[in-house]
């Protein structure tokens, strides 16, 4: 999903920087609010960012005979919503742009928008839609699949907008074959891995998940949460 350094015309770099910039500002306000109201969830924030660090460093083989990497953005999206995930994603993307020449400084806005905003947004919606209807672990798994996959669909759209060619639909299919098709098994793998870490978090700190309002009390009946003025 990394658009390489210099591979987006400058007007598109600015365009995506502006959109991501709006999300960054909103996210900082949200982050301040979360950390002042519920400082005890800080470890979950660190885990969400760390999870993204690990998953986006793993380049996995796919059925198209090429390699790509999962994003790890579904976990943060479910726990903290898409805006906060955008901040976490941009930290990972900056690390990779500066140290690995993956992605770039000029394309950081665009890459943040796909991995930090659109992907997590769809993952978040998926989780919202399924929450309470099925076990949260499966809902998180599906949200992570969608988050990951929509990230790559977004990259394909971004590249098509910048390089429409003679037939934009044809161009989109060419980019989507490279990104979105390769990503199918990796997105499934990411969904499965996210289920495992979610189960661990649910087992060890159900109180924090309740506090963030991401699981219902019926799912962890033996946990009594003392919420002081919270939900």
């Amino acid at each position, binding site marked *: 999903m990394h658009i390489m350094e210099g591979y987006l015309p400058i007007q598109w770099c600015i365009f995506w920087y502006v959109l991501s910039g709006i999300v960054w500002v909103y996210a900082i306000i949200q982050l301040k609010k979360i950390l002042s109201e519920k400082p005890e969830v800080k470890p979950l924030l660190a885990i969400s960012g760390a999870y993204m660090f690990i998953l986006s460093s793993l380049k996995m083989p796919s059925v198209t005979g090429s390699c*790509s990497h999962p994003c790890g953005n579904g976990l943060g999206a479910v726990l903290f919503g898409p805006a906060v995930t955008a901040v976490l994603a941009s930290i990972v993307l900056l690390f990779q742009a500066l*140290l690995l020449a993956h992605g770039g400084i000029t394309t950081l806005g665009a890459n943040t928008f796909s991995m930090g905003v659109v992907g997590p947004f769809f993952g978040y919606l998926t989780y919202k839609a399924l929450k309470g209807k099925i076990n949260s672990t499966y809902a998180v798994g599906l949200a992570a699949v969608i988050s990951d996959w929509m990230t790559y669909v977004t990259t394909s759209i971004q590249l098509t907008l910048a390089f429409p*060619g003679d037939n934009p639909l044809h161009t989109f299919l060419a980019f989507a074959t490279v990104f979105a098709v*390769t990503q199918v*098994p990796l997105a499934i793998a990411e969904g499965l891995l996210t289920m495992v870490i979610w189960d661990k978090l649910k087992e060890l700190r159900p109180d924090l998940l309740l506090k963030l309002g991401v699981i219902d009390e019926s799912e962890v009946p033996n946990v009594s949460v003392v919420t002081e003025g919270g939900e």
Partner: protein
Amino acid sequence: MNTKHIVILLIVAALMVFPLLFVKGEYGGADDQAEEVIKEIDPQYHPWFHPIWEPPSGEIESLLFALQAAIGAIIIGYYIGYFRAKASQ
């Protein structure tokens, strides 16, 4: 780690092994393939900016990728251990 999680991790491993066994490919990066598509669509296009720094070799690159994964793994391991120790108190 219970049976369910072991099965899940085995499925993930199978998903990774399957292409390697049954699909012949170069297993290059998708990002580079996208670069090729751009060159096909717009041969006139030249990147207007280049990475400030690039890992000098594949070895250095894999060193930094391992570092990236390690940073993430330390943080997750630290907190999972912290949570578990706290829970057993």
